[in-house]
């Protein structure tokens, strides 16, 4: 099989040149977030304005006087991107431009937490915006603190492993479902390891109007604590183990865009990551049980 995670050679043609995100950005070696951004811009094309929240993606791309973005780009604050994008798109339309796409690129902290009020407002108004959350499941830019996207039991600097508490207590906030509950036209999850699936979602979103949301898993080398070479592999394992489901919600209807026939044991995903190093076998078994109940997919027989 020439495919890994459903990725075929054919789909990659023509990507190699003129990326709209230039090299020389300062992401950690192995960070998959620039890959995500590159593919987003590749699908959306040059007629796109990027609105970015304070985050790793901002810090690694726009240090004065240099920038990695080749499309127009604006960063102002951490919590306000949905409203900034609202202003951009409203002004464009008011001035007669009815074609330019406005895309938000924001981390999970901006999306799930501090910016969620503004996001909820923009969703309620159904602003004509594409919102991409690269979800590295913590505040990475400030050194790996818990966000609402952090999976349960994961260790971060503010969900530490102590004598009373063993990593993050709360479940991961179901952001795709919450956004869908707002009645927006499109809400989806994605993984960069499933590139054709991701791109299909981007194309679909691109063809629509209104508020469109995609949450993309984005492993973080120091934040999750793993060998940089396996960033894509982890994005794949997350799906193969059922930790990360690939689906989209339109008109309140959920559709799984890819569903593994059998799940790989979740340990394969957890074990390479330092943030899960403290987990006991019982805890891992608990996670495994939760996945099986939630996904209703059988575990791979080994």
């Amino acid at each position, binding site marked *: 099989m020439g495919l890994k995670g459903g990725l075929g050679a054919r789909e990659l043609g023509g990507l190699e040149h003129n990326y709209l995100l230039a090299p020389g950005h300062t992401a950690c070696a192995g960070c998959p977030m620039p890959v995500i951004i590159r593919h987003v811009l590749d699908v959306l094309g040059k007629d796109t304005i990027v609105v970015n929240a304070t985050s790793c993606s901002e810090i690694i791309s726009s*240090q004065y006087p*240099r920038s990695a973005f080749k499309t*127009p780009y604006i960063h102002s*604050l951490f919590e306000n991107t949905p*409203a900034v994008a609202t*202003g951009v798109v*409203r002004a464009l*339309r*008011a*001035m007669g431009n009815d074609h330019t796409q406005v895309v938000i690129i924001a981390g999970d902290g901006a999306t799930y937490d501090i910016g969620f009020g503004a996001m909820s407002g923009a969703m309620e108004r159904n602003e004509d915006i594409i919102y991409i959350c690269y979800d590295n499941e913590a505040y990475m830019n400030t050194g790996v603190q818990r966000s609402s996207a952090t999976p349960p039991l994961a260790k971060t600097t503010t969900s530490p492993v102590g004598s009373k508490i063993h990593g993050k207590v709360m479940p991961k906030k179901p952001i795709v479902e919450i956004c869908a509950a707002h009645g927006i036209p499109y809400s989806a999850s994605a993984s960069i390891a499933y590139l054709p699936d991701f791109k299909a979602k981007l194309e679909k979103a691109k063809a629509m109007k209104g508020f469109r949301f995609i949450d993309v898993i984005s492993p973080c080398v120091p934040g999750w604590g793993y060998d940089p070479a396996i960033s894509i592999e982890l994005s794949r394992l997350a799906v193969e183990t059922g930790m990360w489901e690939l689906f989209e919600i339109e008109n309140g209807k959920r559709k799984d865009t890819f569903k593994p026939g059998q799940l790989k044991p979740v340990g394969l995903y957890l074990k390479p990551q330092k943030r899960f190093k403290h987990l006991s076998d019982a805890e891992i078994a608990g996670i495994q049980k939760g996945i099986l109940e939630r996904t209703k997919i059988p575990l791979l027989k080994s």
Partner: protein
Amino acid sequence: MKKTLEGSIAVAEAIKNCEPDVAACYPITPSTHIGEHLSEFFANGELKSYVNTEAEISSIAALIGASAAGGRAISVTSSQGLAYMHESLFCAAGMRLPMLIVVGNRSLSAPLSIWNDWQDSIAERDSGCMQFYAENNQEAVDLAIQAFKISEAVNLPAILGMDGFYLTHSVEPLDIPEITEVQKFLPKRVSAVKLDTKNPLTMGAYAFPQYYQGFRQDLHKDLLSAKTTIKNVHNEFAKQFGRKYGNGLIEEYNTKDAEYILISMGSAAGNAKDAADELRTAGEKVGVLRIRCYRPFPSEDIAKALDGKKGVGVFEKAYSMGAVPPVYADVSEAITNCKSRPQLSSFVGGLGGKDVTVDSLKILFGKLKKGVCKEWV
């Protein structure tokens, strides 16, 4: 032609005639009526875009986005709403984005009060936004039009302060410049520095220590030189529309031969003029200096106007808790280099809607004669 209408409606009409691309507002007393009327213009196709935001922090964010995209952008707020924009005001100014924020000035909580004072906008004096305070509704109308022009000329946000209720809710005959006249005075905004897919640009980059201070220093310099722009735009406006307000930065009222001067802003300055008039009739050499533009602070004009005076008092509706009142502090510093520094008094009053009467202001002139005085009135 004059129409008798509410200050808020008049300002909304003036804004409409400035043809903004995006208005983004969130209701808050006493400035709500302005936004309501803008939304009505929108519903009637007379305004290009109106965003009902879910909070003020998003109103200003929408202005940041709209202005960055090259549009003319306006919001309206008061008090808690302006306070909720605090972080964004520094950001908008630092990003050099023109926009207008009309503030129906109101006190800050706690305790909550919907009534007028200036603490809301005064507390934003460090932000890099320009601050104007209208004495009356005619000036508010005229300032709205001037403020867009100034803001877009110097690439900095402008705050236009209207005393809450006193101005926002007063119904009076007002002259609202026709749209055709406004178009002559204020052409469509043209900005080379904007989000444009034909000519991409990265806005809002961050700055290492070797760059940051330079940006702040430039911002400060540009604010200082905005004083000239403000005067010029004010003169242009006067030429075209026949209405003048001092020199655009300050207004001197019977100060030339005055021995005692009361400084104030907004509608309180109008009341102070009435008080001065009454005292003049009684033979007292008193005058009023009105600060129309509080940021940038017109220290040179003020120092010049006050040099050699016997006594000067600053009456203001704000405080820097645990220290001294802000306008007074600014004036105090401004007159350090007067050849003959007048005795400077400080009066704080009118907080949370405490009515500032002409009579109470007359008393202040009396106090000035007795020497330096620092009082809550």
